C-alpha cells in the first residue's frame, strides 16, 4: 500500500510544479485510487472557481 499523498504534493501537481516523472507516477495512481482522483478534482474545481471570480473584476465606475 502506498503512503497517502500529502496536500502539498497535490497542490504542486495541479500547479504544474512537479517534474514529469513525479506527475506520471501520480497520474498512474489516480487511475486506481478513486479518493486521490477526487481530491485532485476538487482542487481543480476550487482553482477554476477562483479564476471565474476574478475573470472580470469590477471597474471603478465612480472616476474617470
Amino acid at each position, binding site marked *: 500500500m502506498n503512503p497517502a499523498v500529502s*496536500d502539498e504534493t497535490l*497542490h504542486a501537481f495541479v*500547479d*504544474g510544479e512537479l517534474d514529469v516523472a513525479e506527475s506520471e507516477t501520480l497520474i498512474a495512481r489516480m487511475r486506481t485510487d478513486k479518493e486521490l482522483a477526487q481530491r485532485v478534482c476538487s482542487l481543480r474545481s476550487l482553482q477554476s472557481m477562483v479564476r471565474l*471570480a*476574478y475573470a472580470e*473584476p469590477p471597474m*471603478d465606475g465612480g*472616476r474617470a
Partner: protein
Amino acid sequence: MNHLARQAYMTLISRFLFSSFRPGIEAHRPVLYRIAYAWCHDAALADDLVQEALSRAWTRRAQLRDEASLKAWMVSIMNHCWLDHLRSRRDFDDVEDWQDELESGADTPDVCCNREQVIACVRAAVARLPLGQRQVLTLVDLEEFGYAEVAAILDIPIGTVMSRLSRARASLKMMLDTAMQQSASRTLLRSVK
C-alpha cells in the same frame, strides 16, 4: 509653444524614445488590476495601486535586468505599493498575522447557486483569507506564477509560499463547502414548504 502643447510634445518624444518599454508596462495594466482587486476587493483602491505601480515601474525601468521577467517585476513593485498603503493606515509587522478590515468586516460567503452568486461567494471567501495567504493564492491561481516566482515577488521563502497556499485552499474549500451546504438546505426547505 504654450505649456500644454509643450507637454504633449515631450510626451510624444518620450513615447518615441522608450517605445519598446512603455507599451510593455502599459500592457500589464489589466493583469495588475485583476491582482490588485483580488487583494483589496476595492475598485478605487485597486486603480490607485495599479497607477502607482505603473509609475514606479516607469521611474525604475533601469533596474529591470531581464525583459522576460517584466510581469513578475511589476507585480513585485505593486506588492510594495500595497504594503506601503497598509503601513500608512496603521502599524503592522507581518502580513501573515495581519488581519485587515476586509477579513473581519466581509460578509460570510452566502448562498452559491448561479454564476453571479458563485462569483460573489468566492470573492467573499477570498476576502476573508489572511492577507499573506490571499496574495499567494491569487498569484498562483489567477496568473499561474510558479512557486519560485511567487517567492521572489513577495520576497518570502518558497516553503512559506507552499504552506500559505495549502492553508488558503483548505480554508477556501471549507468556507465554500459550508456555503454550498447552506444553499442546498435552503433549497430543500423551500421545496418542502
